[in-house]
């Protein structure tokens, strides 16, 4: 009795996740290969650090199924990506396109790197310039020789 109850309790979460649209079993290897390639480039919007290929979420399964169906209908990868970005925005792309919105994202790190290099250059230059050779006085020379001798 307790075991049956335990089993029911353990299975309940699975029920809560039951999905309406089911992802079909892979049939066409060519399409699966294209899907695998494409879905590694796409972000799952529910678990944002996972790709569409890796995500176990319902929405990701739906999207993979949608992509599969569109591939079967003869759509190109480009058309499918356009379909998805029209709806979900560029955030879905792991490599967002270069556009005014994403300039900072694409070029910001290089700007920071160059700024850093410039600051480093200035710093080194400043330090080198501030080191000036100063001849020893007679007294200092005498002490230095004394030290070297002993």
């Amino acid at each position, binding site marked *: 009795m307790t075991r049956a109850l335990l089993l029911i309790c353990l299975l309940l979460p699975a029920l809560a996740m039951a999905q309406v*649209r089911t992802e079909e079993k892979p049939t066409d290897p060519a399409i699966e290969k294209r899907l695998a390639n494409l879905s590694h480039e796409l972000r799952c919007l529910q678990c944002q650090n996972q790709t569409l290929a890796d995500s176990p979420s*319902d929405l990701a399964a*739906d999207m993979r199924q949608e992509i599969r169906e569109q591939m079967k209908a003869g759509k190109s990868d480009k058309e499918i990506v356009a379909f998805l*970005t029209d*709806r979900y925005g560029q*955030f879905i792309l792991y490599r967002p396109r270069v556009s005014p919105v994403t300039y900072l994202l694409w070029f910001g790190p290089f700007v920071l790197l160059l700024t850093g290099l410039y600051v480093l250059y200035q710093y080194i230059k400043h330090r080198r310039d501030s080191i000036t050779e100063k001849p020893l006085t007679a007294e200092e020379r005498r002490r230095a020789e004394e030290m070297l001798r002993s």
Partner: protein
Amino acid sequence: MFRYLIPLALFLVLVVFLAIGLTRNPQELPSALINKPAPDFRLPQLKDPAKTFSAADMRGKVWMLNVWASWCIACRDEHPFLFRYAQSGAVPIYGLNYKDYRENALGWLGELGDPYLLSVTDLDGRVGMDYGVYGAPETYIIDKRGTIRLKHVGPVTPDVWSKEVLPVVQELNRQ
């Protein structure tokens, strides 16, 4: 003396940026559909599947589309507030029952009440996909010409309602 303060100043700038970052919700994405035509659909009504409802039926009106499901926990939090918004008469509220079984959805409305003028059934989530739904509840405000003017992901709390939704609705109704 001043140069020793530069690292401190840079650190403070970083702290400010990180502090702002902490207050932002990474689940809230800019919608790709703002100011774009609301994708049309014709779906069976939840309570009377023989009848359909289409986004095109709402031309000439400012209306609100609220995406909900009986499996969605945040929708349960939002639900009581929807009654308040519906009673205020500010905007007609229609429901998109997203990827849900009809009996569960009807049970949910039976238990908690129905704030919607009507809900439509999006069993396979295709319309949801057209609207870029990635987490229920989501709320859209659509203007008289059928353009999406506002999208809110997550429950429309009274705060969101009075600060984000209501001003947009009032503005659109004036036009």
